[in-house]
C-alpha cells in the first residue's frame, strides 16, 4: 500500500493545505446539471468503460448539499439560468463548476435570443471542457485539470477564497 512507505516511523508530516487539497480533489462528487445532449456523455463517463469513480467521483449526487462540483452539461436557456444559479447557491463550499461542452462554455451552436452565451455570464466557472459533445475521456481530462487546480489552492483560509499556491 502506498501509505506504508510514508509511515516508516508511524507518522508523516505535511502541510494542512496539501492534505486538505488532496482529500478534496480525490473525492469530487459531481452534481450533474445535465440539461441536454452533453448529459448523455456525462452519464457514459460514469459507465464501466470510462470510469469516473476511479477519479473519486464515486456517486453523482443530485443533491446540491452533498456534492462538490457542479458539471453544467448542456444548453442553458435564460429561463433555466435562474434554476441553475439557484442550485449553485445551495451547494455548500468548497464548490467548483465545470462547464461541459460548447453550449455551456459559450452558447455553442445556438446564437439566439433564448440561449445564454456561456454559463460564465452568471456562474464562476473553473474548468471549460470543449466539445460538442465532449467525449467522456475529454470530460475526465477536464476533471483531472480541476484536480490539478485544486492541488494549488489555499484551503485552510476557509472563507471560500481560492488563492493559488505557487507551483513548485
Amino acid at each position, binding site marked *: 500500500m502506498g501509505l506504508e512507505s510514508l509511515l516508516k516511523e508511524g507518522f508523516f508530516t505535511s502541510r494542512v493545505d496539501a492534505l486538505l487539497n488532496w482529500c478534496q480533489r480525490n473525492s469530487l462528487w459531481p452534481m450533474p446539471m445535465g440539461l441536454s445532449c452533453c448529459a448523455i456523455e456525462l452519464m457514459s463517463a460514469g459507465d464501466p468503460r470510462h470510469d469516473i469513480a476511479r477519479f473519486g467521483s464515486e456517486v453523482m449526487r443530485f443533491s446540491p448539499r452533498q456534492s462538490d462540483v457542479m458539471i453544467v452539461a448542456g444548453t442553458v436557456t435564460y429561463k433555466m439560468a435562474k434554476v441553475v444559479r439557484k442550485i449553485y447557491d445551495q451547494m455548500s463550499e468548497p464548490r467548483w463548476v465545470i462547464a461541459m461542452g460548447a453550449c455551456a462554455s459559450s452558447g455553442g451552436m445556438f446564437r439566439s*435570443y433564448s440561449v445564454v452565451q456561456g454559463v460564465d455570464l452568471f456562474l464562476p466557472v473553473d474548468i471549460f471542457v470543449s466539445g460538442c459533445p465532449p467525449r467522456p475521456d475529454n470530460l475526465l481530462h477536464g476533471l483531472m485539470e480541476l484536480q490539478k487546480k485544486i492541488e494549488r489552492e489555499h484551503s485552510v483560509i476557509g472563507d471560500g477564497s481560492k488563492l493559488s499556491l505557487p507551483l513548485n
Partner: protein
Amino acid sequence: MDEMLEKVVVKLREDFADAILDVSEFRGDITVLVRRDKIAEITKFLRDLPDCPFNLIEDVCGVDRLERKERFEVVYHLFSLEKKVRICLKVRVDEAELRVPTVTGVFPGANWHERETYDMYGIVFDGHPDMRRVYMPEDYEHFPMRKDFPLLGIPGSIKLPRQ
C-alpha cells in the same frame, strides 16, 4: 387519396359555403382558407365526418406574412388516421384584432400548440383554458417569431441571475 379529399372539400363547401374563402391545391395537398369565426365549427365537422374523420390534429402554428392587411395566419394541419389523408386549414388574422377562437374544445391536443402560437406571435385564442406562454418566461414582453424581432434577441429583455 385525392378522391377522398375532393369529396371532403365538396361537403365542406356545401355546409359552410360562406366560411370557405379559398381552396388551393399543390401537388396533392389541399389547403382551405377559412373565415376566422367558423374555425371551431369546421374542425368539429371534419372531426366528426363519418367516412373520413380527421381525428389527429397534427399541428397548429402561426405565420407572419408581413402584409399590410391580415398580417398573421394560423395554420391547422388535420390528419385522418383511418384514411391517411391530410388537410390544411388556414385562418388569416389582422394585427388590429389578434384573436382567434380556440379549437381545444374539439381537439384537446391543440392546447400547447395554441400556447406556442401565442408565445411566438401574440395571437390570443378565445376560450383557451390556459392562455400563457410556453417557451419564454411569463413576463417576457416581445413575441420572438414575428419578423420584426431581431434574430439575436433584444439585449436586456430577460434578466440573468447575478454573477
